[in-house]
């Protein structure tokens, strides 16, 4: 069990530093655990170094940098062990336009192995999706589902009623 867990952690670590560099376009990130401690019960810490900055404690990171680091770790877990489907609720909310671009490019790489359903208010993320479902309230307080389309200037028009 120890050997297996260590090899899983090493694989997560490899994917984490690759995905971090892809999303931040540079810098470094790694998982840290004490060498001699018992791998099955010790703390596993996260160490990051955004490009150009000195190594930062997680606390000093900005809102957007924390979100992007969280996404890098999430994607690393998914690369190590693909889940059949994933559900992400507005994980792009703290990101600026440039980071949303890098996020959606990284997201699309998962579409080989995983069905991805994401809730978003961000037009760029909507544009990256293959289908859009709209949740609306034609009657206040009661949700109904429609299939929607994104047209050029970012407006959403409703296509047909789903149910």
């Amino acid at each position, binding site marked *: 069990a120890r050997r297996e867990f260590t090899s899983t952690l090493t694989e997560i670590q490899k994917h984490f530093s690759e995905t971090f560099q892809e999303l931040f376009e540079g810098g470094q990130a790694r998982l840290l655990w004490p060498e001699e401690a018992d791998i099955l019960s010790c703390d596993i810490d996260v160490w990051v170094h955004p490009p150009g900055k000195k190594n930062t404690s997680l606390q000093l990171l900005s809102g957007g940098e*924390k979100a992007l680091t969280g996404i890098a770790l999430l994607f690393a877990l998914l690369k190590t062990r693909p889940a*059949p489907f994933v*559900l992400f609720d507005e994980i792009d909310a*703290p990101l600026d336009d440039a980071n949303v671009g890098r996020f959606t490019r990284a*997201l699309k790489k998962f579409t080989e192995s995983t*069905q991805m359903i994401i809730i978003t208010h961000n037009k760029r993320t909507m544009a990256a999706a293959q289908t859009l479902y709209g949740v609306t*309230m034609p009657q*206040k307080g009661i949700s109904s*589902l429609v299939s929607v389309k994104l047209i050029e200037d970012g407006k959403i028009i409703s296509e047909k009623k789903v149910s």
Partner: protein
Amino acid sequence: MYLKKLEVNGFKTFAKHTYIEFNQEIKLTAIVGPNGCGKSNVFDAIRWVLGEQSMKMLRSSKAEEVIFNGTDTEKAVGMASVSLTLDNSKKMLPLDFPEVSIQRKLYRSGESEYFVNGQLCRLRDILDLFMDTGIGRSSYFMVGQGQVDQLISAKADERRAAFEEVA
């Protein structure tokens, strides 16, 4: 395995029978809509039918709070029901069906029922079904609103649970 269909009735803001169908070819679906219209409720419905028991994860304080509570014009209903149909052609779920559908019902009385392919079963059976598929309760397949930096800001032991799920 992939999500084929979600059917919701009487769960949170889904007062009437509502469903959403997913197509195997579509790999990236976005759910959009104004604030408060019920997007996160769709995810709560999926979390609930998969056996979620924690009130905090369902953003409520009592189990019955997930049952449609009425509006200014509509009366509250007496039951919430969610059913989720999954493709099982690769037999990822240990059942001999090409398609598996799970359902959960809750009555105002507090009584709850679970079904797999129409057969009444226990919560335990649903949780066992998804064991080792990466769709467990502590795992990383679902990230709630505002939780994206949870993995890195959490204490080291919460992080460990997600890593153990992967192993």
